[in-house]
């Protein structure tokens, strides 16, 4: 028995492929990638990344905020959430009671060196404002304040599955009656700390990444933010539904998935169970698909175990945006909603020779008539989240 799920009434997105839903959709249609040389982030790591094409000052200007007063993560988050709230058409009173569930892995880490570097060199602390903005919770408070979101709020941080988990938590709150309207999603700014950290794990590619391809050699990092507005309000027109969701843990290793992708298998099956549909109901799978040898191999193993020989259109969009960490689960939720709305399954960007011994990912955008799309987000620490979306 299919579960109706939770109604989505607004979405917003900022990434290297576009500021706003319209620009993002344009890039999805044309396959225009946002990955390129790093221009806006001081680092010695020589890799390409997906940077948002706006400086902090430009974002502050768009938001009517004072420059140098907010972390880049806050600015990205506020920009995306503002669009989502705008589409949702929330009355100020509703907004004042709306819950905000945000997520990030970096928080203010891009700016933290300004506070910490002189201290580490024994010269005393840098400007305190950067320390204030370091914690993950800070961006949640600042975006709530900037946008007038006045209800219950929290900050989730589960590595790469953060944004998906924020949406999952929002859905659970609405379904349980704990909240009536929720703004949920995630944001992460590119920073030297993350580049250095991923480099130390040797999972970055030195060129534009090739998810789901033979010979893929690592991921590209990206930055961005995306939010959806969900509501229990029967009266509002929807832009889609969140029908199923499940968070599981692979319980195998901190930074690698088990060979058979058990955690991912369980999250996909769990989400379908929640949605009340079987594998044949899904028309498009947006994989986590980071292009690391381990992730794509294990995620495909999980998908093949669940769908057997009849896998629907599938692909990764990280070849367009890079891996936007906490934003990715929310950004790719938006991509699924757009896929259903536009009736188009997105090509798996960066695909070269498909992985040997596996069915090929989608080579170019294809027509999508199905009602449901599924998105995976698999994080460090074995965290696996699957979300299932339904057409409006």
């Amino acid at each position, binding site marked *: 028995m299919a579960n109706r799920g939770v109604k989505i009434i607004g979405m917003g997105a900022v990434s290297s492929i576009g500021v706003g839903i319209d620009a993002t959709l344009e890039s999805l249609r044309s396959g225009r990638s946002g990955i390129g040389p790093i221009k806006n982030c001081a680092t010695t790591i020589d890799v390409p990344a997906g940077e948002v094409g706006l400086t902090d000052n430009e974002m502050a200007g768009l938001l009517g905020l004072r420059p140098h007063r907010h972390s880049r993560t806050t600015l990205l988050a506020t920009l995306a959430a503002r669009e989502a709230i705008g589409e949702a058409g929330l009355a100020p009173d509703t907004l004042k009671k709306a819950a905000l569930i945000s997520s990030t892995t970096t928080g203010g*880490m891009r700016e933290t060196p300004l506070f910490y570097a002189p201290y580490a060199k024994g010269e005393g602390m840098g400007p305190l404002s950067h320390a204030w903005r370091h*914690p993950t919770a800070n961006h949640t408070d600042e975006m709530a304040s900037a946008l007038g979101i006045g209800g219950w709020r*929290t900050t989730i941080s589960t590595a790469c599955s953060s944004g998906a988990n924020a949406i999952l938590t929002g859905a659970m709150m609405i379904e349980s009656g704990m909240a009536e309207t929720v703004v949920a999603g995630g944001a992460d700014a590119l920073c030297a700390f993350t580049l250095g950290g991923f480099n130390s794990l040797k999972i970055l590619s030195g060129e534009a990444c090739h998810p789901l391809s033979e010979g893929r050699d690592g991921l590209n990092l990206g930055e961005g933010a995306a939010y959806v507005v969900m509501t229990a309000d029967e009266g509002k027109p929807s832009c889609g539904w969140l029908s199923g969701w499940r968070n599981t843990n692979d319980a195998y290793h901190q930074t690698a998935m088990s060979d058979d992708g058990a955690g991912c298998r369980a999250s996909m099956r769990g989400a379908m169970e929640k949605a009340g549909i079987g594998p044949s109901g899904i028309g498009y799978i947006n994989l986590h698909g980071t292009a690391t040898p381990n992730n794509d191999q294990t995620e495909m193993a999980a998908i093949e175990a669940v769908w057997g020989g009849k896998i629907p259109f599938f692909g990764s969009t990280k070849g367009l945006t890079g891996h936007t960490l906490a934003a990715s689960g929310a950004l790719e939720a938006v991509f699924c909603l757009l896929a259903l709305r536009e009736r188009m399954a997105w090509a798996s960007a960066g695909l070269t020779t498909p992985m040997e011994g596996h069915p090929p990912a989608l080579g170019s955008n294809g027509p999508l008539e199905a009602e449901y799309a599924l998105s995976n987000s698999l994080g460090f620490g074995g965290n696996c989240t699957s979300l299932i979306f339904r057409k409006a």
Partner: protein
Amino acid sequence: MRILSSAKFSDETDVKGLIADSGARRRMSRLIKMGVATGMECLAKAGCRLPDAIVCATGYGFLADSEKLLGQMFTAGEGMMSPTPFMQSTFNSIGSSIAIMTGCHGANMTFADGWRAVGSAMVFSQLLIGSGEAGTVLLVAGDELTPTLEATLGRMGMGRVGVAPSEGVAAILFGREGGMGAVENLTPTTTDHPVEKSDWAYPTASVMRLIDTIAGGSTAAYETSGAKCIIRL
């Protein structure tokens, strides 16, 4: 939901006994070790080998690892950062370590939410149990105090307004039935300031207060930043 057991980290906590595998222990930073040991102790007290879900709460995360990495960045450059502390600095490290040790494939959520972290984790625990997704939920809350954090809080004037930085870890096992008492009428709350001033610097303190309320033995109201409930014993 019901309260099945609780544990607080102390000098008496038998870390080597609770985390017997030295190969696992060596990969854990101090805060992760405290978190995992306390979580495992909480499970043992309830006779529960495998919880259905794990929910973690931290105010500011793994500061010691972050500082180590930042130090490496400045002295040797981004190219010379160590992978182990980078892994350990991710906010869901305690939750994932316990999942690996117990083989728990259920939901695994981490709230890194300053002084609201504990309230958030309690709300989510209730959502898991209330929806039927989990029969037992292990909640682990932890914060560590580094010299830098202490100095920074001092510079922010926290001492003057009576905020005492501290550190600690505590865990509670919630369930659907049995146990020593119940959490009733759990409601999310919206606050602009922490319920207790010290929660600002040491968010885990609010779990300590919850455990103390439970130990008090009589039914009482409990409130933390982000959630309130009745503890019925």
